[in-house]
């Protein structure tokens, strides 16, 4: 089979899985929908492997292959095709997406086992994977936008999966609205670029931009339209990847089931922005101003999200802020030209962050649905497997060698440092962020697994899984039903469910070993593999200064260890009743308030956007809508019609002779008229 056939198969399997589970939900017995969904994604993963092998068979210069099924429209200079682009970058993305998705589907079979929306869940999840694969395989802007919007819709459906929880539906709406803002940015950015290049196809666009004779945006960099287009693309990337100030939906999206958080809000969808910047690198390289915006926003996000993560108590939200922070690294990386490093971090992050979410899901299961760190403690003995996974994920996240996060994160910072100049600020910010990362990660681990076991942990040690007598919404404490549309009262933990253990075990292997794929100065698997996609990128070849490399790796390790040590000092040594952390909190009250209130971003957006919009809406409703439209236009028309019909109705007296008299008078009148005329 040709390379692109594999590409189409990658799209076909998840779509088929979606359709089978969506339309066959009445006829699928038991938990078969889960296995069908998992198999569909696994087949997509196999097809992605096929694409990888087949692609490596081509010469490096011809590893960008476009395949088009048909034309949507080819008039007026628009070349809208149903085309996919199979190149190292997209194959890299489909491998990560389908691989992690397979494991998360497997995990979900156990995790969602008792949920009454089981089939619906797998249908949505398959649809999400299809959309994500469409996004990364798209060969032109049109299909990219379609995939982009589908992913947002799938995310909405899955965040609001427990649709009877008002908190979940509100979070879904918030995520959807912010994502649509990003979609608008993407579409407008495409217009700016299309206006000059006259083509929607990626490769033709890049050729037009890079042409030496007649470049579409002129020979100089920072063409106004190009910068505008790139910044609009960045708006799309920021909204999808939860970067400041469009990040507020991501923590709220934790209302969805935990595997969803793991798949969509950690491993795949939120990395779409990173993919977009990497894919559009020929444009961004000619618009350094837009690149700088991306780098600064990425750095700001990684710092701010890190500080918020220090103060949150909801375990899923801590991991969500950690995700934001890590994606900040990736966005910063691909914006400063560290494409391979950014994508490498995307891959390792997908492994360890999915693993952390899965472990958190297991922990939440053991707590009977409770998510607050305040109520957890001492699960180390009761859940050894989950604990081990959490430790592996935590070490990878903190960047401790030889775990995967160590190599990928330091490579991003290395390239950032090499750029010199003001990029040193970003370099320092990255290491400060790494320090926060280590602290909040191990704060989570120490609070949940160490210390005095809570009653749920004791129960589990005695062999009994705790189930809350009355299921409650962890966000509001409201009592919940156990009907469809709510999470049921039964929970699953990895220690007791084989599929969950397999999924977490494989991801843990990835989190440990994936970093070894590319070790600076030793091997360059990712660099070499991705090179054909970045053939024209400036500074793609690593020309690492050994001194900086050694400093960076040492610094990264030391900072990670220092963070862990500090967390150990505060939450283990200063353990009893959280004395140390309470003391610190009291001493830094204003900072703590700032962090725990998430830097007041929600309030700021509320005051700047939501409130004025609501006020404008209320004003329009009260004055324009009610007075002008309702009373003047609509009321006026009905008034005229009503008055006219009242007059006509009065003539309908029912007296036959009255009608006859009118008739005679009328005919006589007409007769007189003609008589007078002549």
């Amino acid at each position, binding site marked *: 089979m040709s390379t692109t056939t594999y590409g189409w198969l990658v799209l076909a399997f998840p779509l088929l899985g979606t359709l089978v589970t969506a339309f066959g939900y009445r006829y699928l017995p038991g938990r078969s929908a889960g296995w069908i969904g998992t198999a569909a994604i696994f087949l997509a993963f196999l097809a992605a492997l096929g694409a990888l092998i087949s692609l490596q068979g081509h010469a490096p210069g011809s590893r960008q292959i476009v395949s088009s099924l048909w034309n949507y429209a080819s008039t007026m200079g628009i070349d809208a095709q149903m085309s996919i682009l199979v190149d190292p970058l997209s194959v890299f993305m489909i491998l990560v997406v389908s691989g992690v998705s397979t494991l998360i589907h497997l995990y979900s079979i156990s995790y969602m086992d008792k949920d009454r929306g089981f089939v619906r869940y797998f249908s949505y999840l398959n649809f999400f994977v299809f959309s994500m694969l469409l996004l990364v395989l798209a060969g032109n802007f049109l299909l990219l936008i379609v995939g982009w919007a589908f992913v947002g819709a799938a995310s909405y459906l899955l965040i609001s999966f427990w649709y009877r929880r008002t908190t979940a539906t509100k979070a879904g709406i918030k995520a959807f609205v912010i994502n649509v803002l990003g979609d608008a940015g993407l579409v407008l950015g495409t217009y700016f670029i299309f206006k000059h290049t006259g083509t929607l196809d990626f490769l033709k666009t890049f050729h037009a931009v890079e042409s030496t004779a007649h470049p579409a945006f002129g020979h100089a960099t920072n063409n106004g339209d190009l910068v505008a287009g790139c910044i609009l693309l960045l708006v799309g990337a920021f909204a999808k990847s939860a970067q400041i100030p469009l990040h507020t939906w991501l923590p709220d999206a934790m209302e969805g089931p935990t595997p969803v958080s793991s798949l969509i809000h950690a491993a795949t969808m939120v990395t779409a922005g990173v993919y977009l910047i990497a894919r559009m690198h020929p444009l961004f390289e000619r618009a350094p101003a837009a690149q700088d915006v991306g780098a600064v926003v990425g750095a700001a996000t990684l710092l701010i999200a890190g500080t918020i993560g220090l103060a949150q108590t909801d375990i899923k939200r801590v991991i969500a802020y950690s995700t934001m922070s890590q994606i900040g690294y990736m966005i910063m990386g691909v914006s400063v030209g560290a494409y391979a490093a950014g994508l490498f971090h995307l891959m390792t992050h997908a492994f360890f962050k999915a693993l952390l979410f899965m472990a958190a899901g297991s922990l939440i299961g053991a707590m009977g649905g409770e998510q607050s760190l305040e109520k957890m403690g001492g699960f180390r003995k009761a859940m050894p497997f989950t604990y081990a996974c959490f430790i592996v994920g935590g070490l990878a996240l903190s960047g401790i060698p030889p775990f995967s996060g160590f190599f990928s994160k330091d490579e991003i910072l290395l390239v950032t440092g090499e750029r010199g100049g003001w990029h040193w600020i970003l370099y320092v910010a990255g290491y400060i962020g790494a320090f926060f990362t280590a602290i909040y990660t191990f704060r989570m681990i120490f609070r949940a697994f160490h210390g005095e076991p809570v009653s749920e942990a004791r129960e589990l040690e005695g062999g009994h899984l705790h189930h809350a007598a009355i299921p409650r919404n962890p966000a509001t404490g409201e009592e919940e039903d156990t009907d469809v549309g709510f999470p049921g009262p039964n929970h699953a933990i990895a220690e007791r469910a084989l599929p969950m253990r397999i999924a977490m075990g494989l991801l843990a292997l990835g989190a440990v070993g994936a970093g070894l794929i590319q070790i600076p100065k030793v091997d360059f698997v990712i660099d070499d593999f991705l090179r054909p996609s970045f053939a024209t990128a400036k500074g793609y070849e690593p020309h690492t200064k050994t001194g900086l490399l050694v400093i960076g790796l040492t610094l990264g390790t030391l900072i990670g260890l220092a963070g862990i040590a500090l967390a150990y000092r505060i939450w283990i040594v200063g353990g009893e009743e959280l004395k140390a952390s309470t003391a610190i909190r009291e001493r830094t009250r204003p900072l703590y308030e700032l962090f725990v209130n998430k830097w007041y971003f929600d309030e700021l957006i509320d005051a700047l956007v939501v409130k004025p919009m609501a006020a404008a809406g209320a004003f329009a409703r009260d004055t324009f809508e009610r007075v002008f439209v309702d009373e003047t236009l609509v009321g006026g028309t009905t008034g005229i019609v009503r008055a006219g019909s009242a007059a*006509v*109705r*009065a*003539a*309908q*007296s*029912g*007296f*036959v*002779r009255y009608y*006859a*008299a009118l008739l*005679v008078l009328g005919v006589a009148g007409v007769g007189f008229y003609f008589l007078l005329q002549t």
Partner: protein
Amino acid sequence: MSISWYLAVSAIVFSLGALGVMTRRNPLVVLLCLELMLNGGNLALIAFSRMWGNGDGQILAIVVMTVAACEVCIGLGMIVAIYRRNLPIDVDELRELQG
């Protein structure tokens, strides 16, 4: 004789009929008055036919008579139906069809 005389008689008969339709309340008499109006018209048609010396007007008069016969059939049928349902035989009383 000038055609004016015929037309005058025709007009008088027509006007009498019209007055009858407008002033009488008994539906039977209203129907009779309608017949008068139609026949006033017929008279004028025949007079014109005579004036032009061809048969067009006479044919039209026969058509009018046919229509009149149909109309009387329906009218009388309605009056019988009204009578059978014990409703008042008075056009002013039968005025449910109003706005």
